[in-house]
């Protein structure tokens, strides 16, 4: 593969969305608020990400990691996997956006701002995934916070402002801790004789991690786990999640829950690789498993008393991120495969769930669970999509999360008594969440149509992304097909030691 092509493939996922964002910003006169062919141009940038991801998925497992701009951008199998996740989820979310904006009756400036921010957000996520430098990774992730803050506060209502404030303050504080951790790691690297230029360069650090001072790495990794954990929705800095996801526009909530949290978690995984090489896997295992169990317990407890379906989905995200964290804690190759499957599967399923949830809010004017009844009868297509998405999120076959949770359980029980105990506790908590989520979904979906109104049609435009997401999730759970090599290679990066 030529160097130019590699550079192009690595640049496009960042540059494409940035260009799109700039184009939207430059367009002074949006013809109509939403809809029309112009609205669909927004699909170009996520498709760029997806296509670059696909192209890299072919080359990277075969030829090893690709780099560009003097090792500023670097795509290994893990990055490519995440790029695919971003591309897939973003394509669905962007396809759902015109419909969302049309329903919101947003005025042209709002629509423009929405598009500008969403595409910039995509660029930031791609950058975070492709960054070889841990500092750049951090910058990109903090950039996503800032960009999404406006998207969370998109509607400027009291609730939106409140959610945005909490989001920015909690996430910024958390991510600042991650930066402190990064600084300490840099200090350790410099003291280990690594040059200034490559002291934050991930491949260099990972290769020479065994020389780092254990005590400093321990402190730094702890801070990073707390910090990126905040962004990934792990306890203790998790509390912004339900507020932000509940107030953000549905496609943005889908993006945040579906990929942003896992992008942050992948960042964390990069540090974990370094820490494991420096300290052995025990430290991060205890840390991640502890946080994962805490998060699972919180999510289960809060799901049990939940009365709002968007917040319910947010807590379900916490639950899934905790399972992903648990998989990372287990850390065997099988667990790593499970984690990656979980990330992509959860992204797709949660996107569908959030988009469907947005439609439900629009249909009933509320997100209270108690106010939604007989959804399957009232809006069959929407109800079915929501039901299937929840089924996928509950970890039932044929969706990818089933395969992932199966792999996680097998890996966890094989990784020693402590992991097995943690996993047993996790399974009990997952069961609680399952029941809570199931009861609430059943309440919303089942029963006769309220008021005997005729069924509401969802329409092809709104329905297509939902169907595509579900199909993708199911296909991934059935067979990984051409992605198998990529999956194995990516798993080797985080669990191959």
């Amino acid at each position: 593969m030529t160097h130019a092509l590699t550079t192009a493939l690595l640049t496009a996922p960042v540059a494409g969305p940035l260009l799109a964002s700039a184009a939207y910003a430059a367009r002074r006169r949006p013809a109509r608020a939403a809809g029309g062919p112009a609205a669909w141009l927004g699909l170009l940038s996520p498709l760029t990400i997806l296509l670059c991801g696909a192209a890299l998925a072919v080359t990277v497992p075969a030829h090893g990691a690709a780099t560009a701009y003097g090792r500023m951008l670097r795509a290994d199998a893990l990055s490519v996997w995440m790029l695919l996740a971003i591309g897939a989820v973003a394509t669905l979310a962007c396809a759902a956006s015109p419909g969302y904006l049309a329903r919101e009756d947003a005025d042209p400036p709002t629509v423009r701002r929405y598009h500008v921010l969403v595409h910039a957000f995509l660029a930031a996520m791609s950058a975070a995934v492709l960054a070889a430098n841990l500092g750049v990774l951090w910058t990109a992730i903090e950039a996503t916070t800032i960009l999404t803050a406006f998207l969370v506060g998109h509607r400027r209502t009291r609730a939106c402002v409140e959610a945005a404030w909490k989001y920015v303050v909690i996430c910024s504080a958390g991510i600042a801790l991650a930066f402190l951790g990064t600084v300490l790691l840099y200090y350790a690297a410099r003291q280990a004789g690594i040059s200034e230029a490559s002291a934050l360069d991930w491949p260099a650090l990972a290769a020479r991690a065994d020389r780092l001072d254990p005590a400093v790495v321990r402190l730094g990794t702890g801070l990073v786990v707390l910090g990126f954990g905040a962004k990934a929705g792990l306890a203790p800095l998790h509390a912004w999640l339900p507020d932000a996801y509940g107030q953000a526009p549905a496609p943005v909530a889908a993006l945040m829950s579906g990929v942003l949290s896992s992008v942050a978690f992948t960042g964390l995984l990069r540090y974990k690789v370094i820490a494991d090489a420096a300290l052995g896997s025990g430290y991060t295992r205890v840390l991640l498993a502890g946080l994962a169990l805490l998060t699972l317990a919180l999510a289960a407890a809060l799901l049990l008393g939940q009365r709002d379906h968007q917040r319910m989905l947010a807590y379900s995200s916490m639950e899934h991120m905790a399972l992903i964290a648990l998989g990372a804690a287990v850390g065997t190759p099988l667990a790593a495969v499970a984690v990656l499957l979980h990330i992509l599967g959860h992204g797709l399923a949660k996107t569908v769930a959030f988009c469907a949830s947005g439609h439900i809010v629009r249909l009933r004017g509320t997100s209270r669970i108690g106010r939604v009844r007989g959804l399957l009868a009232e809006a069959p297509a929407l109800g079915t999509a929501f039901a299937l998405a929840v089924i996928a999120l509950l970890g039932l076959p044929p969706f990818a999360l089933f395969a992932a949770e199966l792999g996680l359980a097998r890996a966890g029980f094989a990784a020693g008594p402590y992991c097995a105990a943690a996993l047993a506790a996790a399974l009990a908590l997952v069961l609680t969440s399952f029941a809570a989520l199931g009861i609430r979904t059943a309440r919303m979906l089942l029963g006769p149509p309220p008021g005997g109104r005729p069924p509401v049609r969802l329409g092809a435009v709104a329905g297509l992304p939902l169907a595509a997401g579900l199909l993708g999730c199911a296909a991934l759970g059935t067979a990984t097909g051409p992605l198998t090599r990529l999956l194995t290679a990516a798993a080797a990066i985080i669990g191959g030691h």
Partner: protein
Amino acid sequence: MNDAVYTQLLDLACGAFLLAAVVVLWLRQLASIVRVFALQGVALAAVAALLGTYDRRWEVLAVATGIGVLRAGLLPLLMRRALTALAPAPGHPYEEDVSEARETEPLVNVAASLLSAALLTLLAYAVARPLVELNPTPATRALPVGLAVVLIGFFTLVTRRRALAQVVGFLLLDNGITATAFLAASGVPLIVELGVSFDVLLAVLVLRILTTRMRAAFGGTGLDDMRELSDR
């Protein structure tokens, strides 16, 4: 500059840096808090400059200048303007209302806050021991100061009821991290530093905009009003 003077000056700057953080906890007037924060920015810039001068690394000096401009100039300026924007307009019926300008009643009262700050500083010393032991130089010996400011900043964030006070808390946290970076390794690579500063600036801008919207939506910037989104 000989070693003794350098150490003296560095310790002085670090002391001022920590003191400023503690004073922020002590004060109630938001305007004074912003002023003290600006002073802390100066101390931070001084630390950076001292390190650069001692190591004769001129690019560090440049970074120190940038930091000085940002932390002692730009950010306090932004906050002062936010503060004036928040103050009731002349002729407003609540013109005399000073609640927007004061952190009247923090979640943890001032005495307890100061005590906590002392404990947090001790914690920072305990935690930073391995950092110092790795490479004991005058700069790294001051590392606990950076960590202490991080903790104090976080503490401010948790306990202050005014939106602006919380922003200051966040910035204290950030100052602490920057100080740690300088003391530990003379700062992170330039591109990272740029990115970080840019992000911090943007974060403050976002928070400022949100403060304005908050005032429009809630009629004030008291964070206790914002409890609509909950599971209760």
